[in-house]
């Protein structure tokens, strides 16, 4: 029996890992766009990467990878831009205004660089280094809060690319708070309101894992790495 190709039906696969906020970005975006996709969990990401991942992302060997009609797209922000380039009839992540688009790209890069620096130090370091990481993290959240202003979302009235990029990290907040002994709500109340608002969206509540499970995972991960 020959396979019938239905117009509009395309093969979209995403390789991810359940704790990866970068993979969550892509899934949330696909949900918001109503694009059907198949999710593949890279189960042994840390010990034994799959042949599929190594074939699709030979340069970085990381998740997420989007595979569209057999072609791989890597790096979460690049994937988000690709999704907007291909599926833009119903909902676009980026603004139509080029200056707003540029600002969004700037802030995603800003946050990604910050979290790459501070994130791990908050749960893996101790003493002064951990404290410094926490301070830098809070400072960056405050800057983002400033960017949010009085709008419901970073995209203004619209749930936009910066919202999609940042919200997955909210499920790590509990972990950072537990390790560094602080409350993000106290430091950035407006941002926490934004987190609650985003969690009302179906795409977000469907995709984001339980923050307690993330915390458990990090505890286990530290043991695995031999960090106490």
């Amino acid at each position, binding site marked *: 029996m020959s396979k019938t190709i239905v117009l509009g039906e395309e093969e979209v696969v995403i390789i991810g890992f359940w704790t990866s906020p970068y993979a969550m970005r892509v899934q949330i975006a696909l949900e918001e766009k109503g694009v059907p996709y198949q999710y593949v969990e890279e189960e042994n990401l840390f010990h034994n990467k799959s042949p599929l991942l190594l074939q699709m992302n030979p340069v970085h060997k990381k998740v997420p990878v989007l595979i569209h009609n057999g072609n791989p*797209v*890597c790096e979460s922000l690049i994937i988000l831009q*690709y999704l907007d380039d291909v599926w833009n009839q119903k909902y676009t992540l980026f603004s139509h205004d080029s*200056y707003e688009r540029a*600002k969004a790209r*700037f802030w995603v890069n800003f946050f990604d660089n910050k979290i790459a620096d501070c994130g791990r130090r908050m749960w893996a370091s101790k003493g002064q280094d951990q404290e410094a990481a926490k301070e830098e993290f809070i400072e960056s959240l405050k800057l983002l809060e400033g960017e949010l202003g009085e709008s419901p979302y970073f995209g203004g009235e619209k749930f936009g690319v910066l919202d999609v990029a940042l919200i997955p990290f909210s499920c790590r907040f509990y972990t950072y708070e537990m390790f560094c002994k602080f409350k993000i709500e106290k430091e950035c109340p407006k941002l926490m309101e934004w987190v609650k608002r985003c969690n009302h969206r179906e795409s977000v509540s469907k995709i984001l894992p339980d923050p307690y499970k993330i915390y458990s995972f990090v505890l286990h991960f530290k043991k695995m790495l031999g960090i106490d």
Partner: protein
Amino acid sequence: MAEEVKLFGAWGSAFSLRVDIALKLKGINYEYHEEDLFNKSSLLIKYNPIHKKVPVLVHHDKPLAESQVILEYIDETWENYPILPKDPYERAKARFWARFIDDKCFPAIWKAYWSKDEREKAVEELIELLKFLENELDDNFFGGETVGLVDIVGNIIAHWLPALHEVAGVEILTEEKFPKLCRWSHEFVNHSVVKEVLPSREKLIAFLRDRLESRSS
């Protein structure tokens, strides 16, 4: 109206030069402000309070920072001489390699030239990274027949790397190992528009030698 577009840059900065290249390729008039990076202007700090770095593009009084963010903005705003392809998959690939150069190659170049302890390991790493780019090239430029985003971002490899070789005596971009990259680098630095903008090789070598010496003293 040249005042509509302003660029805050610094001579010797590969990042700021990328924006000059893009603006010149598209024939955009702009006002250039040279920054002394050891004595930054209050305007620069006002326009880029977060990083306080060059380049900063100001268009209709709206500032933008980060060279790759600026390059995409320029391409979206002035559609002549496109530096990104139209096809979504080709665009994604171009963005990927541009990020690869800044996120992976640049730190390795930095360590290979400026750090004596980490040099050997950084050189090995840089060679492995450049192999990916070597494989990716199959035309005159990464952008195909014309200079594109990856070529512009690659200015650091085409022009700065050979200059650093003279200064630190570490040669990485050889014809033997990287025949395509070497040919590309020659095409790029001799491109009619690019060569008007690039600092001269001799001046760049002197500038980098000065920086290296002041770092080690």
